[in-house]
């Protein structure tokens, strides 16, 4: 190889032949990232209000919903609402309608009905039946008021009622 400057071999111009080094090799592939951390326990907050007091319903004309139980939401989030209780019938053929309400507006599809029919001497024994309903999953904000409402064309007593709000992380409606 001749000198780049004097073009002689060996060089006679006192300028050192300079050969540039090769390009370095490509770096190694990075190592696999660490495993993700374990997820936290599923968060499920439950607010439950069990009312042991009897609620005596007096019919209006026409019947209108009266609220027996209510709950004021303190945490924003998605909730599943459950209600159950007992109804003591006063008269045969009494039709009772009940539903869940959010800020005095009925929650869609939460309305249910109950009617007891009895005959003859069995009237001696006043029927008690279980009623229940639930909401779909609702998005609620602090300050929202959840209520249970009843209406009927006759007297009855609502006893031993339970209103439950389950706060859930994920909203899945199927």
């Amino acid at each position: 190889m001749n000198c780049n400057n004097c073009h002689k071999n060996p060089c006679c111009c006192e300028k050192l032949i300079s050969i540039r080094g090769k390009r370095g090799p490509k770096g190694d592939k990075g190592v696999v990232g660490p495993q993700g951390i374990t997820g936290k326990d599923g968060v499920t907050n439950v607010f439950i209000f069990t009312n042991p007091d009897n609620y005596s319903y007096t019919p209006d004309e026409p019947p209108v919903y009266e609220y027996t139980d209510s709950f004021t939401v303190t945490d924003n989030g998605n909730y599943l609402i459950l209600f159950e209780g007992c109804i003591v019938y006063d008269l045969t053929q009494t039709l009772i309608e009940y539903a869940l309400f959010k800020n005095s507006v009925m929650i869609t599809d939460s309305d249910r009905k109950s009617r007891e029919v009895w005959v003859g001497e069995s009237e001696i024994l006043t029927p008690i039946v279980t009623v229940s309903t639930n909401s779909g999953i609702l998005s609620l904000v602090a300050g929202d008021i959840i209520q249970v409402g009843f209406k009927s064309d006759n007297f009855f007593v609502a006893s031993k009622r339970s209103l439950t709000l389950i706060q859930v992380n994920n909203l899945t409606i199927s």
Partner: protein
Amino acid sequence: MSCTTCYSHICTCDNEKLCVGPKGERGDRGDQGVVGQDGSIGVRTVYIDTDVSEVERFPSIDYNVISYTATEPGDYLMMFESDTKIIIDQTSITYKATKNNVLIPNAIRAFRCDAVESLGQNKIKKNKMNVGIPSLVAGDIISIVYNGNKRYFTESKSLTMLKTTQLTVL
């Protein structure tokens, strides 16, 4: 800088190509490592026991119709539902939830049923109860206990225990 073979500032050994030149360019950056594995998902504990057997029950005797023995400490929401078949007129039944044989506050419900035989068929009543149970410890036993004044049958029963992060009993 000298020749690496003859050590002369001006190379005389015909090996000038071995003279050290400037450093080569830095190599390309290596490829990115692959993404790490996902962490395991969090745990949400739900225990469900469903019993579809039909069992005959006799008057004025307490019966445990379904139970749960806690294995993890914590707060729970208990949800119970069942069907009860009434076969005799004027049957009155009370059902309650107990923790280690002690009544849980407000965990008591009842139903009464009118004529059944007179209608030529048995009546089936739906029973339901939701109760918050705080501070369970492993080994605690939650039971649903029935007591009726006449003969009856307990049919399908379902007991669900949902472990909660925070239980607020109002």
